[in-house]
């Protein structure tokens, strides 16, 4: 889901809280994954100047070219409808 959120607008920079909300994940899931993606060269992370004056710069993220290919090759799994145990016999 995080890759999908980053892939939504491939060149756009995203911030941590925004990504967590877009992907519907908690910060405890988000940051370890972002760190791993950056380490593998799939993610660019840099301090971006603030949009509003007087605000501190923010850490922002976007997929690299390799990251975009990786995200396209690994789309989010479709949600399973209902409880899988209900369809087992």
């Amino acid at each position, binding site marked *: 889901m995080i890759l999908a959120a980053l892939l939504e607008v491939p060149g756009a920079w995203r911030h*941590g*809280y925004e990504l967590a909300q877009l992907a519907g994940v908690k*910060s*405890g899931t988000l*940051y*370890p994954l972002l*760190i791993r993606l950056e380490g593998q060269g799939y993610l660019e*992370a840099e301090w971006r100047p603030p949009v509003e004056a007087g605000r501190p710069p923010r*850490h922002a993220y976007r997929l690299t070219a390799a990251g975009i290919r990786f995200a396209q090759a690994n789309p989010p799994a479709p949600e399973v409808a209902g409880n899988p145990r209900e369809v087992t016999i």
Partner: protein
Amino acid sequence: MIGGLWRGLAILVCDILKRALPAHLKDWGSAIRLETAGIESAAAALRFAAGGLCGLLPLILAHHMRRMVRSSGRASPSAGMTFHPRAVGIACAIGAVGLGLGYLAMAGAPGRYLGVNAGALVLGLCGLAAIRQAGATVRLRPGTMTLLLSVLLLATAVGGARVDDAARWVNLAGLFIQPSLVLLPLMILDFARSPNRRSTWGMILTAAALALQPDRAMAGMLAVGLAILAMRRPDDGHVSRALAGAIAGFATTLIQPDRLAATPYVERVFQSAFSLHPIAGMLVLAGAALLLVPAMVGGAHDQDNQDIHAVFAALWLVALVAAALGNYPTPIVGYGGSAVIGYVLSLAMLPKAAHARFLGTETLGAGNTTDATEHRLGCVALA
């Protein structure tokens, strides 16, 4: 008011996270702090910060463990491995408090409970630094600290705050602190380091104080800690006399009724955490296990301070077992600042740095190197 407290706590969590992160990941700590500061809802900010800390905790622990192993591996076997039991203890304390905060948040504990535990960790670390500083500047005769602190415990038993016939607490500006949980581990370990007439009297007075309070868990901690020491030093008269006093004190607590009911998030935490959710139970178990890691690491590598590591492990194991069996505070992972401070302060008695002895090194090395190796092994920094 509560919102401000939560926001302050969220920033504190971020600062702890940033400090704990390895240098190459500090930027991520700053990023989480800035994101947290920008979140409008204070509760959401705290959840975001705490989530970040919990999520990155395995990475932090793995980094510090790797660094420890690397620094050990750099030294040649003949020079002995150097490692840092106190630093391991601090990392474990931070980890255990973090896991405890995770449990408390999952269990829906009031926000101030999380604040108290996190604040106690900061206080404990400040206290640890103060003890280190005092050790370098204040010269007390060995055993004096234990004796003075035992008088404090006795004063708590006589004039402390009472709940259901138990007098274990002192009221500090509206905050009830359990001095025995703060001081006892430190005192027992201090006694283990320098048993003499003065510290033996300190132990006996402590046993009397715990019998008067009465507090089976703490009296048990004292008796078991001293029993472990007596087994390792059977010829030490001071240890035997202190153990006799501790057993008498523990027996006295057993024949007195203990009517204290369990307090949510403080006692019966092991049982309630697993009833809540398996993950909550695992957080509590992992946090409890972390408390014993410094002693396990020390016991495995630090041949010159085996007694200290064995007593340290016994003390905190007794506290955990008492919490699992009776209505006694669950150290660190449950709500309660006293245990957090007590654990961190007790780390002051672990060696700051120690040189490990490799079994068989002497037989592998040349004969004339043994003395030099033994000399180096004696250079264990306990300050």
